[in-house]
């Protein structure tokens, strides 16, 4: 971890595996707990962990569906003025059609489509783009 007065950043590269992606949440918790004081810290940290978990699960189960030995590169960046956490995710799986994902009908109880919905509700930005090198997600949470 590199720290200066304005930015803390952390990078990790993980196997695209539902068990291994838990490490991202652990890193988010360490970063936010140690570096800054946040209002309603427990709920805020939980919400960011959940949102990032949803995107990581999406990468594992959709982008890398049928593909073994996939990896997810994660860069966490915490800026202090303004206090913001940026989570960047890179993978080399199949491209994703973000706008094609329907919102869940909240008036009916369903079993699908809640992951992206939660990420969008809990974060201030959910950006996705397909790059020549693979898929890129940028998630942002103002703290």
């Amino acid at each position, binding site marked *: 971890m590199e720290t200066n007065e304005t930015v803390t950043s952390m990078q990790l590269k993980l196997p695209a595996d*539902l*068990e291994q992606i*838990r490490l991202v*949440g652990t890193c988010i918790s360490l970063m936010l707990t140690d570096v800054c004081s946040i209002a309603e810290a*427990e*709920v805020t940290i*939980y*919400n960011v*962990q*959940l949102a990032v*978990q*949803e995107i990581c*699960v999406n990468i*594992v*189960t959709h982008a890398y569906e049928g593909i073994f030995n996939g990896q997810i590169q994660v860069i966490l960046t915490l800026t202090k003025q303004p206090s913001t956490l940026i989570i960047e995710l890179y993978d080399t799986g199949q491209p994703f059609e973000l706008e094609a994902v329907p919102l*869940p009908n*909240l*008036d009916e*109880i*369903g*079993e*699908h489509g*809640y*992951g992206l*919905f*939660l990420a969008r*509700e*809990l974060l201030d930005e959910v950006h996705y783009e397909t790059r020549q090198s693979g898929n890129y997600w940028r998630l942002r949470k103002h703290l």
Partner: protein
Amino acid sequence: MALTIAETGTTIVLYLEGRFDAHAAPQLNDWMKSNIVAPAHIILNMANVTFVDSTALATIVAGLKRCRQLDGDLYLCNLPDPVRIIFELTRFNRAFLIFVDESDARAAFEAR
């Protein structure tokens, strides 16, 4: 995630402990597929759950549907605050009966 099962009369209480996510959800899903039978009175005690994601939520919803198909129900109790907030955000709190503690959930089944 640890799953402990306690059966009292016609009610089964499932105690979940730890992280209930996409990696752990198949454990509960497998149990539900094999063990939910009429009268299907299930209580999910979430007091010691530290994390729930949407895959885990979907597993609980599938369990709820199965219980209701058998004229039973799946009640939730002891939701930690961050988990309760996610239930409210997804509006799943409208579909489930959620109790403050296990004794209230048990009493509700006894009153059915």
